[in-house]
């Protein structure tokens, strides 16, 4: 899967590129709208990620130009404003989805994948760590063959951890993933959920899969 990223800020651009490459995307990064148009015309991409605020030719102009030239693949737009009317405008101009800055990479990734309709066959719905199994499609969880009942939030948190098994996931990122944005619980709600998960998953077993990393977050590893 190939993605064209048109982003003038080098930090953000590098961040996106590296993140997507880790997810096995082919990434072409350009910092300029005109160049982006040319590249889009000459190479085949599955998705384009386009920053709205570009120097020179504006993101909106680039978008309209791409569409009028017959580019039909999905375009994900990065906007700094949250104004609804500019969202409506970009969507009407031909964008398929948008992500507002600042964004968590997870969100960007999820939307890009959704837009590209990455075939699920490539990613198995089953996630496994040790004897813990999670089926993303059926939402069933089993440890050592035994079914585990989880609430929606518990499932979300566990899924997130298993998907990044072995990596310490920051509490902030877990919260954002499971509760979305615009939510400041004020307390560490994730800790409570992890507590519940531990009771349901680790309590009866000697091998504890969920590990706390103090001050940072949690990790699931065999």
């Amino acid at each position, binding site marked *: 899967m190939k993605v064209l990223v048109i982003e003038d800020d080098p930090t953000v651009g590098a961040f996106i590129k590296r993140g997507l490459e880790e997810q096995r995307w082919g990434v072409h990064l350009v910092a300029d709208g005109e160049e982006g148009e040319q590249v889009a015309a000459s190479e085949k991409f599955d998705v384009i990620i386009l920053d709205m605020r570009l120097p020179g030719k504006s993101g909106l102009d680039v978008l309209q130009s791409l569409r009028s030239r017959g580019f039909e693949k999905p375009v994900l737009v990065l906007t700094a404003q949250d104004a609804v009317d500019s969202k409506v405008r970009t969507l009407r101009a031909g964008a398929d989805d*948008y992500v507002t800055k600042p964004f968590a990479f997870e969100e960007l990734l999820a*939307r890009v994948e959704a837009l590209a309709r990455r075939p699920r066959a490539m990613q198995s719905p089953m996630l496994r760590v040790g004897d813990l199994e999670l089926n993303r499609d059926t939402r069933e969880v089993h440890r050592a063959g035994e079914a585990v009942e989880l609430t*929606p939030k518990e499932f979300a948190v566990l899924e997130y951890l298993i998907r990044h098994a072995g990596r310490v996931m920051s509490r902030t990122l877990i919260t954002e993933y*499971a509760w979305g944005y615009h939510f400041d619980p*004020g307390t560490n709600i994730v800790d409570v959920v992890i507590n519940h998960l531990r009771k349901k998953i680790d309590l009866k077993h000697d091998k504890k899969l969920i590990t706390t990393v103090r001050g940072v977050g949690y990790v699931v590893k065999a």
Partner: protein
Amino acid sequence: MSSMRARLTIRYAALMLTLMGAYAGAVYAARRAGVQREAAQLAVTHGDLAVAVLRATQRAGSAQIIVSDSLVGSVLNQEVARLLMEIPGYVIVFDDETGRRLYTSRAVIDLNFLPPSLAQRELAQRDIDRFENALTQVERSRNAVRVPLRNGDLILVERRSSDPIFGRRRVIAGVNLRDFDNSPREVLGSALIVFPFVLVVAAGGGFLIAGRAVRPIDRITSEVEAITDGRSLHRRLAVESTGDEMTRLTTTLNAMIGRLETSFGALRRFTADASHELKTPLAVIRADVERAMQAQTQTTEQLVALEEALQQTTRMADLVDSLLTLARADEGRFDLHREVVPMEPLVREVMETATILGEESGLDVSLPVLEELVVLGDRTRLRQLFLNLVTNAIKYTPRGGKVELNLVLHGAQAHFSVKDTGIGIAAADLPYIFERFWRADRVRTRSAERSGFGLGLAISHWIAQAHGGQLTVQSRLNRGSTFTVILPVHSADAAGADGAGADDTSAARVGS
């Protein structure tokens, strides 16, 4: 200001002029009619006197008419004529049979005199013509006839006697008005002299009075300019207790200045608050990053520092988003993207979070009533709204308390309520809770327990309104609060059609 003064004065003077003119005109007309009437009366008296003389002499038997010669025609007896000469004014005795004038008084003879000079002669002739016309007129009509002559108007009347013995005689008697009573002209004359003087005085006086009235407006304008120069909004206009329009004007202006001061003050405070709120996370981030960069810091410590920094960026992003939302609300923009939102799953999701939070805080969280409803709106924003109310309830309720959520259908409205047994809100504070940066504890603590920017309710209020609904609150200090979100329910028939129209944006959303 001078133009308003001038306009007022001119209008006032014009009015004065009109009134004076009307008055003078009325007096003149009345006087004229009166004089005319009196003169006619006098003429009638003269006429009747002549008739009486003729009748008396007739009865006495003396021959009235003496025919002298065919040239002169019949004339009246000298004796009779001499008697008639006593009657002043214009007197003519006509013989009806012949139409001849048997007697004409001195005044009539003088009238018929033609002076030598040509110019005078023309004027005199005109007089004669008019007089003759008038004689014809008075014969036909019963009323007095007014004849304009160059030495004054005449009033002529005709008198007859019904006595058969009197025979066919008729008498014309006339009185000159100018000799009689000149008062109408005097009235006019005096008016012409006096009125200009009066007008000038009135206009002058009016100008002064207008100036006096208008000067306070000038003063107020200058004062308001001074007050609104940007630094002096604390000042107010001096209010005079005259109780008139000026008082009302100054009072109203003062109220307006007061409101300006409040909102400017609020704006300044808001900016200061927002800057302050942003500075704190920035400071933390800075500290964390610096720490992480130090050589002696271990990897795990670095991760800790970075996680804390990440948390702060989330807080800041949240604050910025809130400020942006409120700025939009200020502009009166209530735009949201709309989709069909089934409320039951949303409330269940919120309930789960509420339960988790409640558990942590030692609270009993329940959801007794959850009815199936559908609302047209922005799912993310609604969730934000509900979660905000829930976190507030939990935050401000001490351990052992209760929080109750409900979703009930009332007619065509959905009522989502969050009821707690917490610290409550004082009645005096209730009107202000939806304002920015308002907080129940009013102390900006930095503890994790009570962190929050104080924008939550302001935004929640906006979200409710943007959905065509409202956010209401009932509260008693130390007893608890109930916040209710009222939203219009989306009709089920349209739901089927719109379900397909939910846009891609919502489908691609991460997290629940």
